[in-house]
């Protein structure tokens, strides 16, 4: 899938979240196992299968769970028992605990009051305006659509203008319209310099939204960083690419002489599927060989480097 990926922050700023050797166990169950990582301003996607420890990790960052071991620092301060720090973090949990008998505004006010915001009204105005729900703020939450409720929950998460946002599966059950709106919202917040850590099961979503990725597998951090960089780190795995050229037989002959090419299959359509252990060599050989042979290069598509296949590889290895 081709996708528009927003440019990563070229200025590598200081990490806003730092986790050093953190573990968390509940009795014999080790939910998070010796994890060290950094999260920078911008959008970071947190991925992993069910039970990989994502929610526990988010809880440790937001101060809802104390690490059994290790250190969690947010905005340069230790999270542990740091009441002042909680006011700079906004948390939207996976499970909706919204009270239908509140109006949207009352709900956000409630959140604002819990942070002791004074004066309250301007902060609430700003948060609701931020998610574009000013027009419906006085309606009961129970009458909202699921997408509107999620946005109002986001407003409540934003009411104290946090620098760090922790969103656990915010898009569960929302429809395509609502997803598009929510994405735009999140991008806007990120462009204001906030750090947004968002967990999701929907890989396409993370792929279009996040600049950085954290992948958890059974309580361990399996990969971290830019998706493209992670992908390149995995380049030692066998790599399959499909190419379309004007003269497939000629191109195949040239390719088979390249040492890094393990096999070539000619599809009925004339497309070539090349299997190689050395992706870098292949990436450079293909245009060069095409030029040497006078073959027109029409299309190049890797068959296994979607986030999905990278994810699958990392989870199962």
């Amino acid at each position, binding site marked *: 899938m*081709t996708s528009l*990926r927003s440019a990563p922050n070229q200025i590598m700023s200081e990490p806003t979240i730092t986790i050093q050797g953190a573990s968390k166990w509940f009795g014999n169950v080790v939910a998070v196992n010796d994890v060290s990582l950094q999260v920078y301003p911008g959008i970071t996607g947190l991925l992993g299968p069910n039970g990989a420890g994502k929610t526990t990790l988010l809880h440790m960052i937001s101060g809802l769970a104390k690490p059994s071991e290790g250190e969690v620092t947010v905005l340069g301060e230790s999270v542990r028992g740091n009441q002042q720090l909680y006011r700079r973090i906004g948390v939207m949990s996976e499970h909706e605990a919204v009270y239908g008998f509140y109006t949207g505004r009352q709900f956000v006010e409630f959140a604002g009051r819990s942070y002791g915001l004074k004066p309250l009204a301007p902060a609430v105005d700003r948060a609701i305006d931020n998610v574009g729900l000013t027009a419906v703020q006085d309606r009961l939450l129970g009458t909202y659509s699921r997408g509107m409720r999620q946005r109002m929950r986001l407003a409540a998460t934003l009411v104290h203008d946090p620098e760090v946002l922790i969103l656990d599966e915010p898009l569960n059950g929302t429809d395509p*319209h609502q997803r598009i709106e929510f994405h735009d919202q999140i991008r806007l917040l990120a462009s204001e310099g906030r750090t947004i850590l968002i967990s999701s099961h929907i890989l396409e979503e993370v792929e279009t939204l996040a600049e950085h990725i954290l992948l958890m597998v059974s309580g361990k951090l399996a990969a971290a960083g830019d998706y493209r960089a992670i992908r390149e780190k995995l380049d030692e795995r066998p790599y399959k690419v499909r190419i379309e050229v004007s003269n497939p037989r000629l191109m195949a002959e040239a390719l088979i002489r390249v040492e890094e090419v393990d096999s070539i299959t000619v599809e009925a359509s004339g497309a070539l599927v090349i299997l190689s252990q050395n992706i870098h060599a292949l990436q450079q050989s293909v245009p060069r060989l095409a030029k040497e042979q006078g073959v*027109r290069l029409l*299309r190049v598509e890797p068959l296994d480097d979607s986030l999905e296949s990278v994810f699958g590889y990392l989870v199962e290895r």
Partner: protein
Amino acid sequence: MSPLLEAKGLTKRYGHTLALENIDIRVDEGITGLLGPNGAGKSTAIKLFLGLLRPTAGSAEVMGQRPYESVEARGRLGYMPEHDCLPGAITASDFLAHMAQLSGIPPRHARTRAADVLRHVGLAEERYRAIGQYSTGMKQRVKLAQSLVHDPAMVLLDEPTSGLDPGGREEMLELIRRIGREFGISILLSSHLMGDVESTCDRIIVLDGGHVIEEGPVSQFTQETETLVIDVDNNRDELVAALATRGIQAKLEGLLVVVEQENEEQFDAIRDALVEANARLRRMAPRRHQLTDIFRRSPDG
């Protein structure tokens, strides 16, 4: 032969709310996606085909029968709801055998059907444990299995990947593809996830505001555009410059080099520019339209 599902002038009104307005739908063999925002009328349409609602006007027919007039029309339909619907205390095996009997299959056959279908959805020895102890993924498989146990001609699947993690989701989608292609059971798939629809469906029907706003083969909505996207791992600026010397205006979109296609000869220039820039070419393909674009175009609400 009558189509599997057919709506003619189908209208459903709840009080003052018009959930569906005079829609015509025809669903034939294969896997059909039913898309639309919340409140678009998708679940109303599904309920009408299941005979749980009566149309205000028009008709909804299942293989030529109206399910709200005769419950027998539901005999060859299967339904997998989105919400929880499984009993916690009994085993999957007992539950499925019971469901098969409710569709008229005698007890002896019901048992073997239950065992076979549970095997096909990937539940083996677990089937003799109480469903309450199952993981989300296993429960989702039982929900799917109960919709198949009476060997329907068509199953209606409502958000079948809801709550699954990426691995579980991929397995469920693979199962859905097999049901549609190998088992020969047609599917109407309702989903909010365009990825699910793109990777499984042959056709889609898009509802919005109680109307059919789009309809057609999935390929029609994911056609390639004239924009060529070149993804290289290094030397992007050099590539843009090399393209420029060959008269090709390239733009950088994030980390991607984007070129508007004009003619076939352009490909030679691009190839040569890649060689000149010494760039490592990962991907080069036209950008495709995406199913999500349907919802970008249509007005909100």
